[in-house]
C-alpha cells in the first residue's frame, strides 16, 4: 500500500500544527494549597479524560440504480481543551454495483480555541475500491469544528493531498426537536477543489452539493433509529467527469439507519 508515502509529508504538518497548538498551555501548576504541595497530595479535583465514539450515520441507502451501506463516525478522547479525534465517512455498494469508497478517514489533534470552536490538524486517508483498481491517497488536514450561532453544527476542513491537490469541505447540520425524542435533522454539505484530480473524479471548482433530511427517534440518547432521504448532485467539471464515466450526477436515496454512540 501507499500508506508509507502517504504519511511522510503530512507528518511534518502535523508535528508543526501540534507544537503550535500546544505551546501556550504547557507549563501551569494547579490550584493546590501550600500544605497539599508540601505533603505531595494529589489534586482534590483531578481533570477527567474521557472519550466517545459516535456513529452519526449507519444507514442503508436505497437508490434508483444501486443500494449502499453508508457510514459516518466521529470519535474523540482527551480532556476539555486537547483531544485526539478520529473521523470517517464512506459508502459500500451492496446491490446494483460493486465496490465503494472510504471518502475520508482522518486522525486529528483537536484544540479548543474559543468557547464553541476547536481547530483540528492531522492526517487523512481516502480509498476508492472496486470494481476497477483501487485508488487511494493521503492528506494533510486542517479543520475547524464547532457550534455556530443558532446551533448549527459546523465541520469544515482544508485538505492537501500527498500530490499537492487541495480541497475544502464544508458540512452543517441542525437538530429540530419535534418532541423531546423525535428529532428532524437537516444536513448540508459541499466540497470545493482547487485542482482537478481525474483519478478520484474530482473536477476543479465546486464538486457537489449534498443535502439530507433524517428523522430519528431517541429511544435512548445513545441509540436512535432513523429514516430519511439524502441527495447529492455533482456540479461543474466534477459532473462532466462523472458523465464521462457513465455515472448519474444526480443521486437521490432513501435511507434507514441508526445513530448511536458509546
Amino acid at each position, binding site marked *: 500500500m501507499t500508506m508509507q508515502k502517504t504519511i511522510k509529508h503530512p507528518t511534518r504538518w502535523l508535528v508543526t500544527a501540534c507544537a503550535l497548538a500546544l505551546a501556550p498551555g504547557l507549563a501551569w501548576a494547579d490550584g493546590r494549597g501550600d500544605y497539599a504541595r508540601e505533603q505531595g497530595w494529589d489534586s482534590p*479535583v483531578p481533570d477527567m479524560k474521557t472519550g466517545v465514539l459516535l456513529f452519526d450515520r449507519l444507514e442503508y441507502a436505497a437508490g434508483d440504480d444501486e443500494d449502499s451501506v453508508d457510514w459516518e463516525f466521529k470519535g474523540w478522547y482527551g480532556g476539555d481543551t486537547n483531544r485526539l479525534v478520529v473521523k470517517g465517512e464512506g459508502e459500500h455498494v451492496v446491490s446494483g454495483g460493486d465496490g465503494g469508497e472510504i471518502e475520508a478517514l482522518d486522525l486529528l489533534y483537536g484544540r479548543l480555541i474559543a468557547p464553541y470552536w476547536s481547530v483540528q490538524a492531522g492526517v487523512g486517508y481516502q480509498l476508492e475500491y472496486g470494481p476497477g483498481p483501487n485508488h487511494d491517497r493521503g492528506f494533510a488536514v486542517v479543520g475547524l469544528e464547532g457550534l455556530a450561532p443558532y446551533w448549527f453544527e459546523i465541520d469544515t476542513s482544508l485538505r492537501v493531498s500527498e500530490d499537492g491537490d487541495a480541497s475544502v469541505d464544508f458540512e452543517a447540520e441542525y437538530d429540530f426537536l419535534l418532541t423531546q425524542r423525535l428529532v428532524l435533522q437537516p444536513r448540508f454539505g459541499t466540497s470545493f477543489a482547487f485542482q482537478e484530480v481525474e483519478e478520484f473524479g474530482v473536477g476543479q471548482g465546486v464538486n457537489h452539493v449534498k443535502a439530507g433530511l433524517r428523522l430519528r427517534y431517541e429511544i435512548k440518547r445513545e441509540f436512535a433509529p432513523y429514516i430519511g432521504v439524502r441527495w447529492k448532485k455533482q456540479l461543474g467539471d466534477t459532473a462532466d467527469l462523472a458523465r464521462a464515466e457513465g455515472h448519474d450526477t444526480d443521486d437521490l436515496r432513501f435511507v434507514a439507519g441508526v445513530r448511536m454512540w458509546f
Partner: protein
Amino acid sequence: MKSNNTLTADGLSRRRFLRNATSMSVLAALYGVGGLQPAFAWPRSGNLEAEKEADGDTDIVNLTIDRTPMPIDGKDARPITVNGTVPGPLIRLKEGRDVRIRVTNNLDEDTSIHWHGILLPFEMDGVPGVTFPGIKPGETFEYHYPVRQSGTYWYHSHSGLQEQEGHYGPLIVDPADPEPFAYDREYVVMLSDWTFEDPHDVFRKLKVAEGYYNYQKRTVQDLLEDIKRKGWEQTMRERAMWGEMRMSSRDLLDVTGSTYTYLLNGRSPADNWTGLFQPGEKVRLRVINGSAMSFFDVRVPGLKMTVVQADGQNIEPVPVDEFRIGVAETYDVIVEPTEDRAYTIFAEAMDRSGYAAATLATREGERGEIPERRPMPERGMESMGMDHGDMDMDMDHGAMDMGQNDMSGDMNGGKEMASDASDPHAGHDMSGGGQAMNGADSAGMKDDSGGMDMADDEPYEWPLAGRKISHGHDDHGPGAAMVASNPQNRMSDPGIGLESTEDHKVLVYDDLRALAPWPDEREPEREIELHLTGNMERYMWSFDGKKFSEVDGPIRFHHNERLRLILVNDTMMDHPIHLHGMWMELENRHGKYRPRKHTLSLKPGEMVSAQITPEHKGDWAFHCHLLYHMDAGMFRVVSVA
C-alpha cells in the same frame, strides 16, 4: 420571643428516635417489609440519631462507611452508607463542648467526611488533597475539634463523587443559650437526589453529550405556541437572542428527574417519610439540601412556614409560603399545623422534573395530597446579566457579551438600559454609587419583606452599585461561553419559576436579616472579585475561566483581615458557592444586620458580595457545591496565612 419547652420537646423526640431505631432493626431482620423499617433505613417516622458517649467535655461518635445493598424507592441499590444508612445518622452536638468522631472506612476506595458549615482547625475539615490525605480503605481517622457555634448543618464525603452515592447526613449543634424562638417538636428534613447510575457515568454523559438529562428542551411546538402567544416578531427576537448565544432557556438543572429519584430523609415520595405532630404544636423543620445537583422549591401547602435560621444562623423570623434551597444550604422553619390532618412537605426540583415529598401527620400511615405540578419555567432576560426579569423590554438592549465577536452591535446596550430603567441596582450612572437609598423603596424592586418592619434599618446602599467589573482581556477564554456585562443585584428576586405575591410569599435573600450585627464591624480593606464561568458544550466549569488544574496556586487571604469577596455569575446556571472555614456575611439590604452564610446561591447574571474575616489559618476549599461542577474544576483553595 423566648425559648420555652424546647428541652421537653427535644427529649420527647429523642426517646422516639431510640425506640424506633432499636425495635426496627430487630423487626426488620424478621420481616423487612410492610410498613416495618428495615435496619438500613431511617425510621419512616422521625430521625435516626447516632449514638454518642460523653468523656468529660468531649462527645465521642463512631462512624463506619460501607457499601450497603438496600432498596431505594423499592429498587435494588448499593449506596455508600454511614453506620449503615442513607442518609447517615443525625449527629447531635452541643455548643461549647468538644467532639471526637472516629470514622472507619470499610470501602475499597478512599473516603472522607467534611463537616459542612462548621468552623474548625483546617486539618479537621476533611477535604482530601487540601486539608488531609483522605481516609484509606480499612483505616480509621479521628476528627476532633471544639464546637463553638450552633444550628443546623450537615456532613458529607469530599472524595470523588461519593456524595452522589449516599454519603451524607445531618449535623445539629444545640446552642449553649436558649434560642430566640419556641417550638414543641423538631425534625430534620434532608433532601437529596439519588441515581441508580454510576455517578462516573453521569459525569461522562454530561461531558460527551450536552443536555443528556434534559427532557424538557424547547421543541418546535413551543416555538409555535410562543408565536401564537407573543406574536411572530417578539418570538423571533427572543429566539434570535438565545440562538446567537447558543444558550438554552430551558437548561435549569444539568441532571434531572430523568435519572434522579428525589429523596427526603432517604425516602422516595412513595416511601413517604412521616413527621408526627399534635394539632396546635409548633414543629421545627430543619431543612437541609444534601443533594448533589438539585435546587429544590420547598413548601407545605396549607401552612405558613416561619424561617428562623439560614445556614444555621438565627435570622429575624420571616413568614413564607415557599422557599428555594440551593445545594448545601440549610433553612430552619417553624410550622404550626392546627388541624388533625395530613400535610405534605413538598420539595419540587427547580426544573420541575421531579420532586421529593413527605408527610406531616398526627399518625403514621397517612399521606397528604400531592400538589399539582407546575410547568417548567423558562429563563428570560434576567439571566443574561441585565435588568430584573422584565420580559417586556426591548430585546435589542440585551446586555450580554459573547465569548466571541459574533454578537451584533446593538447588543451592547447594557448601559443605556440601566439608565433608561432608572434602576438603582444597575448602577452604571451612579457616579461611584454615592447615593443612599432604602432598598424597600427603590424603583424596580418589589418589597418582598413579607410584613417585616424595616424602618429601623440604616439607609441601604448596595456596595456593588456602580462597580466596574472586569472579565479580563479575553472574556475568560474558551472556558467561558458567556459573560454578564451588567450583572445585577437579584437578592429580591425569588428566582426562575417562582413569583412572590401577596398570597404566596417566597423567601428571597433580601429577607434574611441577622438578629444582631456580627462581631467584626470593620469596613472591608480589600476586595477580591471572582467570576463563575462555564462552557456547557464541553461541560467545563471554573472560576474566571480557569479550572482548578489551570490556575497557579491558591487564592490568598490574610489572617484576620477584613475582606469583601465579590462573586459574579457569568453563566446561565444557578450556582451554590461554598467557602469552607469562615463565614460569608452576605451584603444584602440589611446593612450591618447582614446574614452570614456558608453557601451563597447565585442566579444567572447575578453579582453578590460578602464580608469575610478569615479567623482560622490554613488551606480551605472554595467551590461550587454542584457536585459535577466542582469535580469539573470549579474549585479553588483559599489559603489563610
